């Protein structure tokens, strides 16, 4: 299982702050996971279209090719706007 978290506008758009998911077969990185989520259709399709979508794996900033494995915590969020 991987724990997935959604923050800010993404959380609102998807209507959930997170979920636990069995890693789909063949998914080994952030980009693959994102594609699998977008394939759900509906609002999930827009996930792949978010401009400058950011991600983190185990609370470290990640990129599309960052590996994801069973037990990881993956987060998706829009560009940050603190300070």
């Amino acid at each position, binding site marked *: 299982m991987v724990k997935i978290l959604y923050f800010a506008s993404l959380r609102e758009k998807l209507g959930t702050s997170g979920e636990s998911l069995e890693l789909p077969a063949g998914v080994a990185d952030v980009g693959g996971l994102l594609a699998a989520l977008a394939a759900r259709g509906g609002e999930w399709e827009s996930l792949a279209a978010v401009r400058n979508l950011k991600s983190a794996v185990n609370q470290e900033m990640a990129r599309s090719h960052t590996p994801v494995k069973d037990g990881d915590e993956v987060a998706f969020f829009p560009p940050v706007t*603190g300070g």
Partner: protein
Amino acid sequence: MSVSVQEADFDVGAEIAALTAGDPRAGAVASFVGLVRDVNDGAGVSEMALEHYPGMTEKALEAIVAEAKARWDIYAVRVIHRVGRLLPCDRIVFVAVSSAHRGEAFAACEFIMDYLKTRAPFWKREVTPAGARWVDARETDDDAAARWEK
């Protein structure tokens, strides 16, 4: 604790005093205080809500502080970022850095703010007369952070 993410307000004077208490090496403290403004992108802002990623936000701030300490000869650093509901004039962020001389303290303080704005997971949602909206990230913030990579 050099980094805090909290709902509560903070006392700037007390934080600066604590930063250098008992440290005779410190000849300089540079600090920055960010405030909630009542206007953004041409619209009035009546209140703001700050969201963060518990756990990751603190780690990201600690990493930024560690990088500043690796780049400059600085002594103590304090970073406070508030979350939750804030109103115009409220303090939102505080950074203070001590060092022997002002140059290192100024540079490190500015570096920490620039990296905080682009690398720490905080998101602002502001309330305007047209309704609530998420604040968009600014390219100028990315540019400000990028100049430290040269």
